[in-house]
C-alpha cells in the first residue's frame, strides 16, 4: 500500500451546529481524531439561538450547552473555529484538506472570557445572535455559553481599532494584528453539516417584513421568547415594546413556493410555530394566538399529540388559509391580515404582531463548500443524496446530513449525524484508535481525613437566577457556612471560562469539596464533576443546589423569599458535601459484539454497518426470512428499486462472516447490562445463549388491517401496498375511464391511533403518479385530511397536481363513505369548498393504512426494561438529542419500532444505531460510576427485600462469615447496580446505603434545613 492510499484515523466534520457536534462526539468516542471546522466564533449553530424545544419544552441552550462543553474538552476533538475549507485532495480514506483560519484577533488560549474588553469597546453594532434585535460590541462573544468561550473582534467594518480593548485586557489576549492562517490537515473522511440559513423574508414582500416593525421572523421570535434574549423573555412587539394581545403566525414563508425557487416544504415550521404559540401562552396566557397554515404537517413522533395539546389546552387557533395581503395601521402599527376563509369568503382581521414562519434555506456557504469538496447538489442547492443511501454524497468518503441533505428537525439532524459517523467509522475501521489520545487526569488528591474546605459557586444563569435571586447575598451567606473557605458568583457557572475559574479556585484555596448552586444536576452535574476531576478532586466531592428550576423559576414573583430559599438550598448542599467521600470508578471488561433484534431493513443495515465497523453481530429475526416490511415495497418516490436494494442487502448481510443470522428465532431472556449482555434465544425449540455488549432494537411494526370501507368484503377495495404490488407486477390495467379513489388516514390520526403514520401521503402520491405514468387519462382521487409531503416530497405533490391527480380534503368527523350501488363501487365525500357531497364511482378504492406498533413490543420492552410511548412504539431517551438511544445504556432503537417512517429515515436511524453502539463496542473497558449501593454486613439480616426489589438484578444474598458467624447477607454487584436507590429505600434497618446518597448524608442535608 503506497503512502497516498494509507487510511487516516481522523475525520473532518464541517459545520459546528448540533449535527456537527453530535458527529464529532460520536466519532471521538469511537476512536477517531476529529477536526471540527466552524466558520463562526463559536460552535452551537442555530440551536443555540432557540428558546425552547418541543415536545418536552426543554430550554434549547440548557440541553445544548453540556454538549458544547463536551466538544471543547474532548481529548479527541480539535475545535477549528473561524475556519473554512479551502480545498481537498485525495480520496476516501486519505484526504488532504486545506483550511483557512480567519483571524479572531483574540488568543483563545489566553482569553478568560471576562468581558472587560467588551465593556470598554465603544462600537456597537447589531447582534446577529440576537437577530439584530439588540446590539453587541465590536469585540464580542456571540453568547455566554459560546464555545470556545474566548471573545473575537469583528473587523468587517465594526472595529475602529481604538485599542481600548487591548488596554483593558489583563490577560494580554488581544492581537489586533493577527493574520489569516492556512492549515493543512490529513483525514480519512469528511462529514459535512453546514446546516441552514433562514429564508430571507424580504423576498416575499407582501408580508411587509422590513417595512412594518411588528412583523418578525420566527427566528427573531425565538430570541424574543428567550429569557436570555433582547427582551429578557417578555413577549413584546418591536414598535412599542408592549405585550401584544393578538399574534398571528403565517406558515410557509419561503416554503412550498416554487415561484421563488423554494418548492420544497421546510418540514419544521408547523411544529415550531405551534411550539412558539404554546410558549407564548405560557409566558402570557392572555395573548391570543392564531396560526395560518396550508396543511398541518405534524407528521412526526408525538407531533399530532402536541398540536392537539396546543388546540385544546392552550386554545391556539388554527386557520387553514393562505394570506394574500398584510397592511399596517400607521397609527397603532397593528397589522391587518386579509385571508380567505374555507367557505371562500374574504375576511380582514387585525393583529398586533405577526410572525413569519420562515423556511429553511440551505446554508449560504453550502454552494461554495460543495464546489470546493466537489460534491453534487440538487436543484435547490442541497446535497444530492439517494433515498437508499441517504448519508452519502456523490464523492466517496464524504458524508452529509442535517439540513444540508434536506430540511430536517433536530432529532433527525442528530440521527443523520450519528448515521454519517457509522459510514466514516466503517470506512476507517482498520485505522480506528491510531490517532487518538488518552485523556490524562492529574492524580486524585487524597483528601481522606482532611477537614473539609468547601468552595461555593453560585450561578446567575444570566437573569434566569440573577433576575430573581439576590445572588451576591447568597454568596456572602455561603461564606459564613461551616467549612466554606471560598464563594463567588458567576454569570454562567457552566461556561467554559468558569470551568477554568473553578479549577483555579480549587488550586488557590486548596478546596477539597465543591458546591455549585445553579440548575439541575440532571444536565449539568457531569460537567462540573469533570471540572473538579481535572483539578485533581474526586468527582464525588461535589454537590449541586438547584436554585433555578426549584427556586427562581417557580418563585419568580417573590425575589426576597427566593433569595432566602436559595440560602437554605446552599446550606443543605454544603452540609451534605462536607460528609462526602471520594468514590472510585469501576472498570469492567466488555464483549465487543452487537445484537440486532429484527432482520428487516433497519436491522440488516445496522448489522451490516456494525460488521463493517469491525464487530461481530448476532442478527435475530422471528420470521423465516429476512426483509421485514420492505418486502412489500417496490419503489421509492424518487423511483429507486427497493426490491433490488433489498436483495443486495440480504446478500451482503448473509455473506458477511461477522454477521451471525438466526431466523425463526425468538428472544426468551435478556440479562446483564451495557457491555455485558446475555441473551437467550429460542431456535427450533432449543435455547441458545448469546453474549454481546450492545443491543439494537429494530423489531419493526405492522400494517394496520382495515375493517372499514368494505375492505375484505369487496375485492376492489385494496390497501395502498396491494396497489403498489399490482402496479409493480403489472397486474393492473387502467383505461382512460378508470377511476381510482385513494382514502388517506385509515387507522391513523383517529381515536385508536392518534398519531400520523407519516408515509401514507407520499405513498399515495407515489402510486398515483405511477398510475398516471401507465395512463395519463386515468382518474385518480386522493381523499386526504392534510397532505403531509414534507421536505422535497412536496415536489411530487406538486407534480401529482400538475398531472391531474385530484386532491379532495375531508374532515375527521365527516369521513368519506364507500358504498355498493348494485355492483358498482361508489365513494361519497363532502367537498368542503362547494359544501356539497360528491359522488365518485370507483373501479378501485385504495386505503392508505396506518403503520401500527408490533404486538410483540410490550413483551420485548419488558425483557429489555425499556419504555414504550403511549402509542406503543419504543420510546427513546430524549426526543431531541438522544433520538436512537434508550435511557438504559447500551440499548438503541431504529426503524419502525421507533415510529412510522420512510426507508431513507430507517436507514439513517439504523446507521445511527451502529455508530452509537460503536461508541461502546470500541472501548477496551467500561468505566462504571461509583454511585452504587453498599451493604453494611454487620447490620444486614438477609431478608432479601433489596434483592426482590432491585430492578437490575444487582443484588444477591450469600452466606458469609460475619464476626465469626456464618450468616446470609446481601451482596451488590457494582457492575449491575445503576444507583437507583430502590434497595436503600426498602431496607428498614438502613443496612444498605447508596454511596453518595447515604442515609446520614441525606439526613444531614435535611437536618440543615429544619
Amino acid at each position, binding site marked *: 500500500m503506497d503512502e497516498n492510499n494509507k487510511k487516516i484515523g481522523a475525520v473532518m466534520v464541517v459545520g459546528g451546529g448540533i449535527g456537527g457536534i453530535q458527529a464529532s462526539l460520536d466519532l471521538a468516542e469511537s476512536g477517531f481524531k476529529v477536526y471540527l471546522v466552524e466558520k463562526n466564533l463559536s460552535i452551537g449553530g442555530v440551536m443555540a439561538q432557540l428558546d425552547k424545544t418541543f415536545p418536552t419544552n426543554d430550554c434549547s441552550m440548557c440541553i445544548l450547552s453540556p454538549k458544547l462543553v463536551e466538544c471543547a474538552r474532548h481529548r479527541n476533538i480539535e475545535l477549528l473555529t473561524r475556519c473554512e475549507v479551502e480545498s481537498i485532495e485525495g480520496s476516501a480514506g486519505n484526504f488532504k484538506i486545506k483550511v483557512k483560519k480567519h483571524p479572531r484577533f483574540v488568543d483563545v488560549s489566553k482569553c478568560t472570557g471576562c468581558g472587560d474588553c467588551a465593556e470598554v469597546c465603544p462600537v456597537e453594532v447589531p447582534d446577529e445572535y440576537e437577530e439584530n434585535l439588540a446590539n453587541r460590541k465590536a469585540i464580542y462573544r456571540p453568547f455566554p455559553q459560546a464555545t470556545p468561550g474566548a471573545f473575537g473582534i469583528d473587523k468587517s467594518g465594526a472595529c475602529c481599532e481604538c485599542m481600548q480593548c487591548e488596554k483593558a485586557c489583563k490577560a494580554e489576549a488581544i492581537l489586533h494584528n493577527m493574520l489569516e492562517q492556512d492549515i493543512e490537515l490529513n483525514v480519512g473522511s469528511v462529514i459535512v453539516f453546514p446546516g441552514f440559513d433562514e429564508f430571507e423574508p424580504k423576498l416575499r414582500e407582501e408580508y411587509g417584513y422590513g417595512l412594518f416593525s411588528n412583523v418578525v421572523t420566527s427566528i427573531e421570535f425565538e430570541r424574543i421568547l428567550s429569557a436570555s434574549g433582547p427582551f429578557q423573555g417578555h413577549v413584546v412587539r418591536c414598535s412599542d415594546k408592549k405585550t401584544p394581545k393578538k399574534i398571528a403566525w403565517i406558515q410557509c414563508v419561503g416554503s412550498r413556493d416554487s415561484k421563488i425557487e423554494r418548492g420544497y416544504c421546510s418540514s419544521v415550521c408547523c411544529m415550531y410555530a405551534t411550539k412558539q404559540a404554546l410558549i407564548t401562552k405560557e409566558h402570557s396566557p392572555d395573548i391570543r394566538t392564531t396560526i395560518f397554515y396550508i396543511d398541518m404537517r405534524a407528521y412526526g413522533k408525538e407531533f399530532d399529540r402536541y398540536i392537539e395539546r396546543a388546540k385544546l389546552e392552550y386554545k391556539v387557533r388554527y386557520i387553514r388559509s393562505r394570506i394574500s395581503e398584510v397592511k399596517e395601521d400607521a397609527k397603532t402599527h397593528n397589522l391587518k391580515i386579509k385571508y380567505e376563509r374555507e367557505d371562500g369568503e374574504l375576511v380582514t382581521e387585525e393583529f398586533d404582531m405577526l410572525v413569519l414562519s420562515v423556511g429553511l434555506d440551505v446554508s449560504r456557504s453550502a454552494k461554495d463548500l460543495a464546489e470546493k469538496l466537489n460534491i453534487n447538489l440538487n436543484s435547490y442547492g442541497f446535497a444530492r443524496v439517494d433515498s437508499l443511501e441517504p448519508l452519502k454524497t456523490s464523492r466517496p468518503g464524504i458524508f452529509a446530513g442535517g439540513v444540508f441533505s434536506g430540511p430536517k428537525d433536530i432529532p433527525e439532524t442528530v440521527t443523520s449525524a450519528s448515521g454519517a459517523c457509522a459510514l466514516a467509522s466503517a470506512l476507517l475501521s482498520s485505522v480506528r484508535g491510531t490517532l487518538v489520545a488518552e485523556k490524562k487526569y492529574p492524580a486524585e488528591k487524597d483528601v481522606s481525613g482532611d477537614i473539609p474546605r468547601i468552595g461555593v459557586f453560585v450561578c446567575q444563569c444570566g437573569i434566569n437566577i440573577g433576575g430573581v435571586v439576590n445572588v451576591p447575598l447568597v454568596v456572602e451567606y455561603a461564606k459564613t457556612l461551616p467549612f466554606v473557605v471560598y464563594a463567588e458568583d458567576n454569570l454562567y457557572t457552566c461556561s467554559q471560562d468558569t470551568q477554568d475559574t473553578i479549577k483555579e479556585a480549587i488550586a488557590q484555596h486548596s478546596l477539597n469539596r465543591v458546591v455549585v448552586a445553579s440548575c439541575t444536576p440532571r444536565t449539568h452535574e457531569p460537567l462540573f464533576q469533570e471540572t473538579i476531576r481535572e483539578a485533581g478532586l474526586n468527582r464525588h466531592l461535589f454537590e449541586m443546589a438547584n436554585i433555578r428550576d426549584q427556586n427562581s423559576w417557580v418563585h419568580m414573583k417573590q425575589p426576597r423569599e427566593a433569595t432566602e430559599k436559595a440560602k437554605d438550598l446552599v446550606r443543605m448542599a454544603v452540609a451534605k458535601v462536607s460528609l462526602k467521600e471520594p468514590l472510585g470508578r469501576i472498570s469492567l471488561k466488555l464483549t465487543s459484539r452487537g445484537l440486532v433484534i429484527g432482520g428487516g431493513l433497519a436491522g440488516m443495515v445496522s448489522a451490516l454497518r456494525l460488521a463493517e465497523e469491525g464487530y461481530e453481530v448476532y442478527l435475530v429475526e422471528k420470521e423465516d426470512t429476512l426483509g421485514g416490511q420492505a418486502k412489500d415495497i417496490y419503489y421509492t418516490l424518487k423511483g429507486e428499486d427497493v426490491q433490488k436494494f433489498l436483495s443486495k442487502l440480504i446478500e451482503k448481510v448473509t455473506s458477511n462472516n461477522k454477521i451471525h443470522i438466526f431466523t425463526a428465532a425468538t428472544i426468551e431472556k435478556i440479562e446483564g447490562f451495557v457491555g455485558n449482555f446475555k441473551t437467550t434465544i429460542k431456535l427450533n425449540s432449543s435455547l441458545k445463549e448469546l453474549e454481546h455488549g450492545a443491543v439494537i432494537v429494530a423489531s419493526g411494526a405492522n400494517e394496520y388491517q382495515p375493517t372499514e370501507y368494505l375492505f375484505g368484503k369487496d375485492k376492489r377495495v385494496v390497501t395502498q401496498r396491494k396497489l403498489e404490488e399490482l402496479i409493480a407486477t403489472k397486474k393492473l390495467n387502467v383505461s382512460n375511464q378508470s377511476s381510482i379513489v385513494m382514502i388517506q388516514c385509515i387507522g391513523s390520526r383517529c381515536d385508536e391511533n392518534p398519531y400520523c403514520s407519516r408515509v401514507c401521503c407520499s405513498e399515495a402520491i407515489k402510486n398515483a403518479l405511477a398510475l398516471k405514468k401507465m395512463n395519463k387519462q386515468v382518474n385518480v382521487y386522493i381523499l386526504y385530511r392534510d397532505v403531509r409531503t414534507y421536505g422535497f416530497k412536496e415536489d411530487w405533490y406538486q407534480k401529482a397536481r400538475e398531472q391531474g391527480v385530484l386532491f379532495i380534503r375531508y374532515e375527521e368527523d365527516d369521513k368519506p363513505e364507500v358504498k355498493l350501488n348494485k355492483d358498482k363501487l361508489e365513494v361519497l365525500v363532502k367537498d368542503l369548498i362547494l359544501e356539497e357531497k360528491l359522488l365518485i364511482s370507483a373501479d378501485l378504492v385504495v386505503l392508505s393504512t396506518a403503520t401500527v406498533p408490533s404486538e410483540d413490543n410490550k413483551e420485548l420492552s419488558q425483557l429489555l426494561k425499556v419504555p414504550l410511548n403511549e402509542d406503543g412504539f419504543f420510546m427513546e431517551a430524549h426526543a431531541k438529542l438522544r433520538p436512537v438511544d434508550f435511557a438504559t445504556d447500551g440499548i438503541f432503537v431504529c426503524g419502525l419500532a421507533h415510529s412510522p417512517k420512510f426507508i431513507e429515515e430507517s436507514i439513517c436511524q439504523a446507521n445511527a444505531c451502529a455508530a452509537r453502539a460503536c461508541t461502546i463496542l470500541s472501548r477496551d473497558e467500561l468505566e462504571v460510576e461509583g454511585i452504587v449501593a453498599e451493604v453494611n454486613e*454487620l447490620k444486614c*439480616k438477609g*431478608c432479601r427485600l433489596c434483592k*426482590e426489589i432491585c430492578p437490575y438484578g444487582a443484588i444477591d444474598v450469600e452466606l458469609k462469615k460475619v464476626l465469626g458467624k456464618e450468616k446470609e447477607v446481601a451482596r451488590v454487584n457494582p457492575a449491575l447496580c445503576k444507583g437507583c436507590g430502590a434497595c436503600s429505600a426498602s431496607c428498614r*434497618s438502613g443496612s444498605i446505603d447508596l454511596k453518595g446518597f447515604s*442515609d446520614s448524608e441525606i439526613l444531614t442535608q435535611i437536618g440543615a434545613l429544619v
Partner: protein
Amino acid sequence: MSKHLKVEVKNGKIKEAINFFLIELLKKNLVSALLVPRELPSKDNVVQSLVSQPDELKNADVFAPVLPVNSARIISEMTRLGSGKASVGAILRSCEIRALIELVKLKQASLDNLLIIGIDCPGTYSVKDYKALCQQGIYPEDELFKNLKKGMEDVRIREACKVCEYPVPSNSDLTFGFLGVDFEKNIFFQANTSKGEKILDRFSYLEFDGLKIREEFIFKYLKQKIKKRDELFALTQKEVKGWENLISFFSACINCHNCMKVCPVCYCRECFFESACFEFNGDKYLNWAKKKGSIKMPKDTALFHLGRMAHMATSCVGCGACEEACPNNIPLLKVFKTVAHNVQEIFQYVPGKKLQEPLPLTTFKEDELQRVGED
C-alpha cells in the same frame, strides 16, 4: 384433605386431655421437642418452654389466656440460622402463626422440621390482668371457658383480642379447637396437612361430627368481632385525624422502643431509629429549640412510630404485643391495626395468610397506588 377427630374431655378437664396428647407426642417420638407455654411456679403467668422430656409437660398450659411473648419471635430465634435437624412441635395462636409466616417470607424464620399446632383463641388477658385474676383466686382459663359457654366476652380481655378476626388458626399442621364445640365433653382435633394427618393416624380418636355447628358458631362469632373491629377503626380514625391529633396520640412516648422490641414482625438487628443517623450534637438541639420555640424531648418519638408503622404496616398481624409492652400505656394497637388494615387493603394482602403470597413491597403492579394525596 383434612381429618377431624374428637378428644374426650374427662370431668371438664380440657387441659388434661391436651397434655395427655402432648406427652404422647414426645413419648411416641413424633416430635423431639415441644414449644409450649408452661405455668410458672408462682401460678400467675406462663412462659414459653422448649420441652424434650415428657414429664416436663405436667405444667404445660396451652390454653392459658395470656400472651407474654408472641412466639413467632422465639421460633425466629430458634431457626434463623438454620433449623434443628429433629422435628419440633410448637403450640401457637393464630397471631403467632401469622407473624411467623411473615417472618418466614422475610427469611427470618424457617418452617423446616416444624410442626405447627394451632389452638383456637377467643382472647387473652394482659399479663397484669392475668396475674391479678390469679391472685384473686380466679383461674383465668376457667373464666374464659365460663364466659364462652355463656356466649359472652370478658370485658377484661385485651383490646387486640376483642377485635381479632382470626380466633381460629390457619396454616397449622394440627388444630386444637374448642370454639363451637361442646368443650365440656370433648374438644376437636383437626389435621390440615399430611404432616398433621400422619400424627393423628397414630392416635385412635373418634371422628368428630360437629363440624357444621362449629362452622356456624365461628361465622357468627367472627361477625361480632368484625363489627367491634370496624367500630374501633372508625373511632381511631377520628381520634388521630390530623397532624395535631396524631402527634398528641404519641406524646407520652419516651423512646424506650419496647414496642419495637416485642413486635413479632420487627426484625432488624439495629433499628434505624437507633442508628447514628439520629445522633446530634448539643448545638443542633439548641438550634431546633430556638427555631421552634420548644421541642419535645426525647425527640423524634412520633417519627419513630410513624417510621415503624411505614415499615411494618403490611406485615402487622394485630397481636397487640406493642401495646402490652408500652410502659406509658399508649394504646398503640388501635392505631397500628387501623393503619395496617387500610394499607393491607390497598395491596389486597393479608399478612400470614399464605406463605407463597409475595410481600407487597416486593411486587410492582402498574395499576397500584394511582391515587395520590387526600380525597
